[in-house]
């Protein structure tokens, strides 16, 4: 779960960057590329938001293959020389992430958001069912049928009039119904309106919207996803207009623009009648009218889509690999004395050191400790007369370690029994380094086992 949370956060950050870059570039891209391609590039991005895991070309970087709490490689270190440590991850261990708390909050937020939207939509549908009436005007129904045939839409489409809505709309994932507000609509306007809604139907825009909603639910904590949802809603309409107006004259474009303005105006009036609200300028409609009248030839945006796809897939790899080599050097580095260990919060530390000569030690960590923690050691060694010592040393005292017994430690014990429990004295919570040393004169081999940090 912890891994999942990390993957989710990485995804959220990476997708935020990609989405913001795309939004910023949008005005420029809109001039060159067709709205349809820009709209479907958004779809690729939305899918990137919804699925936090990425395929990894380099299997070494795949999150599931990084063992959670395990010393990947440990080399012994000469006591008399300074030590260099490279850790996996940043030194954030001092702030123990209570990941299960975070995950609960995340799940509550996500479920809450989905539940709220389902409830809201259900209420809306109920209202629509109560108030709407089938349109029985044969001419109107014929127009709808003709358009359906023309656009090759096989499924039945209902047509209803619904007082209370301010804009024509299409609802229903499985049995679509077009709803018209109860305002006077001229016949040529009706054709535009129906065609517009049928384009939404044909492109499965409702399912697209549902996917966007899912992305906003999964990443509800991220404001960028909500900005994106807004941008997609705008792009959805612009690309719908584009498809509808393919190869049409400027005169028809004008009529279409006027239809939209007319519907907006009527809707505004209706909404003022329904609620006490004043109106301010909507920038979206201006942009839209501008694109409706824009007849410049646009390129297919397969390049844009590919770039977005590469960025999404690439983000997984770079994000997985970048924190892996953050240095936490405290003294000049000597490569052969590197000790690589994952930096992780409390739990179980697996120890696997092949040999430890007398008066030598290895340093692992840092690990987060709290005042009431109990350290359980369960370590076996081979070899006689060596003295295995285990201690935790404060982060800032690490550079002072000169040998297995030196340096201030909050825990300092010699392991005699295979199962050893030590309670941490009430020292400040923080980041500590685990020092495993051999205080004896004889080599210790195959030092294996676990050191567990628990609260029990």
């Amino acid at each position, binding site marked *: 779960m912890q891994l999942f949370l990390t993957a989710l956060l990485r995804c959220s950050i990476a997708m935020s960057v990609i989405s913001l870059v795309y939004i910023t570039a949008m005005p420029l891209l809109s001039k060159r590329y067709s709205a349809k391609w820009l709209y479907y590039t958004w779809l690729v991005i939305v899918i990137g938001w919804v699925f936090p895991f990425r395929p990894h070309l380099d299997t070494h970087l795949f999150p599931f293959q990084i063992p959670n709490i395990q010393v990947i490689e440990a080399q012994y270190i000469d006591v008399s020389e300074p030590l260099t440590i490279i850790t996996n991850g940043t030194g954030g261990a001092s702030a123990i992430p209570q990941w299960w708390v975070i995950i609960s909050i995340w799940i509550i937020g996500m479920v809450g958001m989905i539940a709220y939207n389902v409830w809201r939509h259900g209420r809306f549908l109920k209202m629509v069912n109560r108030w709407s009436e089938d349109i029985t005007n044969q001419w109107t129904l014929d127009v709808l049928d003709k358009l359906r045939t023309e656009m090759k839409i096989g499924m039945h489409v209902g047509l209803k009039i619904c007082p209370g809505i301010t804009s*024509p709309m299409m609802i229903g994932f499985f049995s679509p119904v077009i709803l018209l507000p109860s305002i006077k609509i001229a016949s040529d306007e009706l054709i535009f309106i129906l065609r517009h809604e049928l384009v939404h139907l044909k492109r499965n825009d*409702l399912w697209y919207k549902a996917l966007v909603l899912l992305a906003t639910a999964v990443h509800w904590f991220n404001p960028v996803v909500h900005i994106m949802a*807004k941008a997609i*809603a705008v792009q959805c*309409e612009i690309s719908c207009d584009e498809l509808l107006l393919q190869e049409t004259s400027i005169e028809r474009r004008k009529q279409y623009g006027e239809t939209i303005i007319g519907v907006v105006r009527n809707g505004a009036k209706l909404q003022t009648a*329904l609620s006490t609200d004043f109106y*301010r300028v909507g920038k979206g409609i201006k942009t839209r009218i501008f694109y409706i009248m824009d007849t410049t030839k646009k390129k297919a945006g397969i390049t844009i889509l590919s770039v977005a796809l590469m960025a999404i897939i690439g983000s997984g790899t770079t994000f997985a690999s970048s924190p892996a080599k953050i240095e936490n050097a405290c003294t000049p580095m000597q490569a052969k004395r590197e000790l690589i260990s994952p930096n992780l919060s409390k739990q179980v530390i697996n120890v696997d050191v092949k040999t430890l000569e007398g008066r030598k030690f290895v340093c692992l960590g840092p690990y987060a400790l709290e005042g009431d923690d109990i350290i359980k050691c369960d370590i076996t060694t081979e070899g006689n007369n060596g003295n295995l010592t285990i201690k935790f040393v404060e982060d800032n005292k690490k550079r002072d370690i000169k040998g297995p017994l030196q340096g201030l430690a909050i825990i300092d014990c010699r392991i005699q029994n295979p199962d050893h429990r030590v309670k941490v004295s009430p020292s400040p919570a923080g980041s500590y380094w685990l020092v495993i040393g051999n205080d004896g004169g004889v080599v210790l081999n195959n030092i294996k086992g676990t050191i567990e940090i628990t609260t029990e």
Partner: protein
Amino acid sequence: MNDMKKLPDAEFEIMKVVWANEPPITTNIIMEQLGREKEWKAQTVITLLLRLVKRGFIRTEKNGKERTYFPMVDKGDYLKFETGDFMERFHANSFTSLVATLYNDKKLKDSDLDELVKWLKEKRD
């Protein structure tokens, strides 16, 4: 009608017929337009009508043998009461709603629209 309450579905159905027809409304009209479709008995319809009278949505008169009904609440007023608030809230956050609308903007000024129309008209060639 200060304390208007949302009508239950059955009473609302009756009210829709009341609004759709020229008053005075008779039980027969309602039976014809609704009773058969819903398979309601005449008694059911009368009970529902009486409830609506109690609520103040309609008033009733007795002309000889036949009882007639007149709407007391305007359809538009009731629509505003029942959906106005909801639609406002629905539109306030409609970007990720699960309906495909014709436009997304929630708030627009008339003068801005005029300006747009003018711009459209001036656009030649």
